[in-house]
C-alpha cells in the first residue's frame, strides 16, 4: 500500500510551522510556496476536461452552490473546455470511485469542495497527469494543491455584531463535525462577541453532516430552547435561519446571502467567492504553469461578510465594520491571552495566532461548550 503516513507527517511538520517558516497571507492567498514539482504539461482548451466533485447538491444555495458558481466562471472563461461535476459525493469508498471515474474520463484537473482524505489521495497518487485541488485539506502532493477561505475573520466581525445584539449573552452554533473549520468558526464568533460582552458564551451542537436540514433545524431549536438568541453555524443550507425567524431570534449565515429565508432574523453571512481563484488555477493548468500550493482565500478577496440585515441596529453594524476595517488594515484579532474551555492558557498574552494555527484549530476557547 501507499506509504502515505510518512509523507503526510513530514508535510504536516512543514505546515504546522515547526520548520520555523513564517506563514502569512499574501495578496494572492498563497500560504505556502508551491512544491518544487515540475508543472504538468499544458493542455489545449478544446481538449481540457475540468471536473468538480461536490459534497452537497448544487441547489443548496450554500457551499456547493458557491463552488458551482466557480465552475460556471471557469466554463465562461474557457468556453471550449469541458466542465463536468458530480454532487452529493459521500464520505465513503464511493468518493474514490467518483474521482477515479473523473480520471478515466480524461479530467486534466479535479477540484473538490470537501475533505475526502485517502479517498482522493489514493486516486491522485495513481493519476500523476491530473491536477487536484482539494478544499479544506492540509496535504500537498506533487499533483495536489489545497485551498480554503479564511472564514474566521468575517466570523469574528459578525461575532462583534452578535455581541452587540445578544440580550442573553448566549450564542448558538450548528456545527457539522468536530473539525478545525467548526472550531475556527465558533471560536472566532465567540471571541468577536466577547470583545463586546466579556461574559458571552456559545453552545455548539455537531450534527455529523454539512447538509441535513432536518438535523440542523432540530439543533437550532435546542440551542434557542437553551437560551441562545444569536445563532451561527457551518451549514450548507438555511435551516437554522428559518428557525431563528420563527422564534424571533437572530442568525449569522455562511456561504450566500440567504436573507429571503428569514428577513427579520438575518444578521449577515460569511460570503465566499471562488470564481477568480478557480479561473486562475485552471488557466495555470491549461498553460502548463500549474504547480500545487496551499492557498487561503484572503479576507476581502474571496472571503467577506455580506451586507447587514435590515434589523441589525446601526450601532452594531458600525462597531463590527470598524473591526472589519482594522482587520483589513492588518490587525490580528486572535491575540493572547486566549484560554481553552478547560481553563488552560493556549495563547499567552503578547502572542497571536497565525492563519495556520487557526486553520488547524482543534480546541474550544473559554466559554464554548459542546464541541470538545
Amino acid at each position: 500500500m501507499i506509504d502515505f503516513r510518512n509523507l503526510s507527517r513530514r508535510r504536516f511538520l512543514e505546515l504546522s510551522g515547526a520548520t520555523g517558516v513564517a506563514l502569512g497571507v499574501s495578496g494572492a492567498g498563497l500560504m505556502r510556496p508551491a512544491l518544487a514539482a515540475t508543472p504538468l504539461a499544458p493542455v489545449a482548451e478544446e481538449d481540457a476536461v475540468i471536473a468538480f466533485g461536490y459534497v452537497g447538491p448544487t441547489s443548496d444555495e450554500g457551499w456547493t452552490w458557491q463552488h458551482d458558481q466557480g465552475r460556471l466562471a471557469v466554463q465562461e472563461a474557457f468556453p471550449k473546455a469541458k466542465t463536468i461535476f458530480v454532487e452529493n459525493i459521500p464520505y465513503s469508498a464511493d468518493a474514490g470511485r467518483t474521482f477515479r471515474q473523473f480520471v478515466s474520463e480524461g479530467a486534466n484537473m479535479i477540484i473538490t469542495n470537501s475533505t475526502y482524505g485517502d479517498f482522493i489521495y489514493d486516486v491522485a497518487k495513481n493519476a500523476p497527469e491530473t491536477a487536484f485541488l482539494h478544499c479544506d485539506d492540509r496535504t500537498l502532493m506533487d499533483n495536489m494543491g489545497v485551498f480554503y477561505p479564511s472564514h474566521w475573520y468575517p466570523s469574528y466581525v459578525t461575532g462583534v455584531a452578535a455581541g452587540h445584539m445578544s440580550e442573553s449573552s448566549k450564542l448558538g452554533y450548528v456545527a457539522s463535525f468536530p473539525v478545525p473549520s467548526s472550531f475556527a468558526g465558533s471560536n472566532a464568533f465567540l471571541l468577536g462577541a466577547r470583545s463586546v460582552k466579556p461574559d458571552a458564551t456559545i453552545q455548539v451542537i455537531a450534527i455529523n453532516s454539512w447538509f441535513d436540514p432536518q438535523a440542523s433545524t432540530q439543533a437550532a431549536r435546542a440551542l434557542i430552547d437553551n437560551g441562545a438568541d444569536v445563532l451561527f453555524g457551518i451549514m450548507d443550507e438555511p435551516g437554522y435561519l428559518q428557525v431563528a425567524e420563527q422564534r424571533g431570534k437572530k442568525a449569522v449565515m455562511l456561504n450566500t446571502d440567504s436573507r429571503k429565508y428569514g428577513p427579520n432574523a438575518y444578521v449577515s453571512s460569511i460570503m465566499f467567492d471562488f470564481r477568480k481563484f478557480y479561473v486562475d488555477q485552471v488557466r495555470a493548468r491549461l498553460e502548463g504553469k500549474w504547480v500545487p500550493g496551499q492557498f487561503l482565500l484572503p479576507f476581502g478577496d474571496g472571503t467577506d461578510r455580506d451586507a447587514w440585515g435590515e434589523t441589525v441596529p446601526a450601532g452594531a453594524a458600525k462597531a463590527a465594520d470598524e473591526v472589519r476595517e482594522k482587520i483589513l488594515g492588518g490587525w490580528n484579532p486572535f491575540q493572547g491571552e486566549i484560554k481553552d474551555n478547560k481553563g488552560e492558557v493556549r495563547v499567552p498574552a503578547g502572542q497571536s495566532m497565525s492563519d495556520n494555527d487557526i486553520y488547524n484549530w482543534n480546541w474550544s476557547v473559554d466559554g464554548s461548550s459542546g464541541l470538545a
Partner: protein
Amino acid sequence: MSIRIQRVPSENMAGGLAARLIAIVLALSIAAIVFAMSGADLGKLGAHVFKSTFGSRFGLMDLGLIVTPLILTGLAVTVAMKVGAWNIGAEGQFCAGAIAATAVALFVPGPTILVLPLMFVAGAIGGMLWILIPTLARAYADVSELITTLLLNFVGALFIYYLATGPWLDPSGLSFAATKRLPHDVPGFWGDVHWGLPIAVLLTVALAGVLNYTRWGYEVRIAGSNPAAARYAAIPFRRHLIVVMLMSGAIAGLAGMFEVIGTTHRLQGGISNNFGYIGIMVAVLARGSAIGVIAGAALMAVILKSGIALQTQGVNISTVLALTGLILFFTAIGDELSHYRIVRSKPA
C-alpha cells in the same frame, strides 16, 4: 371453456425468475424513457455506462469492491429469512463489525497474518452482538425484530461518528473525522479487489449447502416456514431462531470488517454506504437462493457503479436511487403475481 385466475400457496420457480427479469427490464425501460425525455443520447449514455463497468479494468475492479459487502449483507438478510426473521439491521451490524475489526487493528499489535484472522473473528462477533438484543427480544418476548434491528442501525452509524470524531480520531490531525489509517490490509485478490470477494462467495455457497442439504438446515427451513408445525415435530424453534439470527448478524458484521480493512482503510462515518439496506434488496431479489444472492448483489453493484458513471454525464444520483426503488417495487408486484396461475377449464 372458461378462464379462471387461481391463487396458489407457493409461487413457482420460473414465475419468480420471470417476475424479476420483467421487473428489471421494466425499471430500466422507465429510466431510459426518463433519460430520453430529458434529452439524453441513450446510445452514448449506454456506451459510457458499459465502458465504466464491464468495459474497463477499473470498472471491473470497482464492481468487485462494491459486490463484496453486498453479497455478505444480502446473505445476512437471506439467512435470517430462512428462519422467518426479517433482519432489517444489516446496516447496524455492518457498523458494529467495522467497529470491532477496527478496534483489533488499532489496539492489537502484531503481524498482519495474525491480526487479520483476529479482525475477521472480531467483525463477526461485533455483528453478532449488535443483533443479540433483537434476537433475544424476539425469541423470548416476541418483540418484532423488524423494528428493533432497524432502530439499532441508527445507533450503529452514530456510534461510528462518535468513535471516529472522538476517542479514535486520527491523532495526526490531518484526517477528516476518521481514525488513523489502519496498519493492516486484506491481501489483494485481483488488482484492488481483495480476498473478501472470494471469501464472501465461498461463504454463500457453503451456507447454501448447509441450509439445503443437512438435517439442521432442514429443521431451520421448517421452523421458518411454519413455526407451529416445527413445534409439533419437536423441532426446537427458539434455538434455531437464535442461532440463525446471530449468524445473520455475524455475516453482516463481516461485510463491515472487509469494507473497513479492505477498502476504506479507516473507520469513519458514512462508510456503510447503505450496503446494509441494499442487502435487503439483494435478499428480496435472491428469493432465498445462494446463487440468487450472488446474482442479486452483482446486479445492484452494476446499478450502483453505473450511477457513479452516469453522474458525470449530468444524471442526478436521485435518478439512480429511484431506479433501484423501481426494481424492488416491480419485483414485489411480480412476486405476488407469480402466486397466481391461469386455469382453463371446460364447462362441466
